[in-house]
């Protein structure tokens, strides 16, 4: 019942989120044939002051168009779209989970129902998580089809693997936002706190020497490009003994924040 209520509350936002993701994906794919020659000619991307921008330039301007196209998708579909839209989506959908109930004075009513707080958290969380994660897979699956329209190929397995990583990152942000939503009384405060943390992380990412300390380092071109190129097997995403296992770390972080949210909710007094 709580899950149904949550879904009714977020369904239009979830649809808007799906549409925005798709609208961002389609032009970057369809315009590729026009953009690729420009990227090959560009010297700006090849000689920047920052190494990571140079790697992007080398990738998208590669003489092998298949390599260049996958690099292009890594940067535009994943580094840009999912990082930007999924973070915003997780914050927008997550802020209201509990803080909105407090603002509307419905939280006391909900907590007084004969249902455990763990169940309340779970039934609010899973529809939101599904609403955030499923569009990532749908839009990236559609990118495979759009790519075929311009006679390019995006490999299914690699694209889904990259989508899996993007989904883990989105779940991490959702879990963080859920925790803050339990702690804060006002929805705007939740958005302000999580938004500030995200902006700080972006700032750190864009600062050369401290860049490795940014969360966005786990979801940038250096991670998505090898994933889409097929150079990172599934095991490297999840097994710390085989590779960096960034996907596992993101899921572990998400679990930690959900646990913190559950503990905070158990202690919450309306």
């Amino acid at each position: 019942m709580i899950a149904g209520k949550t879904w009714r509350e977020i369904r239009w936002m979830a649809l808007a989120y799906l549409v925005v993701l798709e609208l961002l994906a389609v032009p970057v794919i369809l315009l590729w044939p026009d953009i690729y020659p420009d990227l090959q000619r560009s010297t700006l991307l090849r000689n920047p002051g920052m190494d990571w921008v140079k790697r992007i330039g080398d990738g998208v301007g590669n003489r092998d168009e298949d390599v260049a196209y996958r690099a292009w998708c890594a940067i535009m579909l994943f580094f840009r779209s999912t990082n930007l839209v999924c973070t915003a989506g997780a914050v927008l959908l997550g802020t209201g989970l509990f803080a909105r109930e407090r603002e509307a004075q419905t939280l006391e009513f909900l907590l007084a129902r004969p249902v455990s707080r763990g169940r309340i958290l779970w039934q609010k969380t899973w529809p939101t998580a599904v609403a955030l994660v499923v569009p990532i897979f749908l839009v990236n699956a559609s990118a495979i089809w759009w790519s075929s329209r311009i006679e390019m190929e995006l490999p299914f397995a690699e694209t889904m693997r990259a989508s899996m990583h993007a989904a883990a990152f989105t779940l991490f942000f959702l879990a963080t936002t859920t925790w803050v939503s339990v702690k804060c009384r006002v929805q705007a405060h939740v958005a302000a706190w999580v938004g500030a943390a995200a902006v700080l992380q972006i700032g750190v990412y864009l600062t050369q020497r401290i860049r490795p300390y940014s969360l966005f380092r786990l979801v940038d071109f250096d991670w998505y490009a090898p994933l889409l190129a097929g150079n990172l097997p599934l095991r490297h995403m999840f097994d710390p003994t085989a590779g960096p296992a960034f996907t596992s770390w993101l899921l572990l972080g998400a679990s930690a924040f959900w646990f913190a949210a559950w503990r905070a909710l158990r202690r919450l007094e309306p």
Partner: protein
Amino acid sequence: MSEAPAVALRGLTKAYGDRTVLRGIDLQVARGEVLGLVGPNGAGKSTLLRTLVGLVARSGGDVSVLGMDPAPNSLEVRHRTSYLPGETGVYLQMTGAQFLAFALGFHRRIDAARRDALLAGFELPLHARVRSYSAGMKQKLALVATLAPDVDLYLLDEPDRALDASVRLFLRDALVALRAAGKTIVLSSHHLAELETLADRLEFLHDGSLIAAQRLADARARLRRWTRVRLRAGAALPPSTHVERRERDGTLVVETEGDPLVWIRSLPADTFDAVECGTSRLEDLYRVLLYADRDDRGGAP
């Protein structure tokens, strides 16, 4: 073995940081009893009710609800109780019917006949969105959601909030029917006259403490000697009369020694238009208790 009381509190204390909201409350409510909680805003009535349903963790003392401690057994307590919060929040985006289906869906047993009777009496437009409801309609909806579950104990924080007089009477009848069905009710209200007719027993809560039974008995005894007199124009009472206060409509409340009827008979026949004596009102008792409390602290009434 006798059944545990519906509610048993011993030394219940609740503090938020330095602010103590409940101070050593001792209270017992028998099964099938209707207890009215009376007190000014901020006295601790809502916190007391929240503690009973396990929404608020106590700072000290013992709490037993239907024989269970609500701290470790909060879920089972909530299965066997139904609680109406004071700040009633209802989901504005739902229709009335959707809200009821949602709210009642959590409970093990619903008394369908009671639910239908409440809905008929409250005349709610169930297919309209709750956001279009007035404050009174929202309260009625929350009341149906609270009273329809078939549970042992009903905890109602100001159930008559935002309701007009006729609806309050209907609600009182519904609560009387609940009492007749052997259900236990603990409720708070600021409509003291109606509460007095409904409750088997009243407890006065002030500044986080229950007013002691002896002090309550003293106040009641004092009130019994009060007489309310509406004087005719130009008439005056004997100078020795102790006038307790003058009400808004000009009625004087007089404290008399001994039988008030004797005092009334001693007045000249054309002195008053109306006179009332022998019955103390809960409002008077409430005022006396609060005044006495302020006097104790040395403040002005």
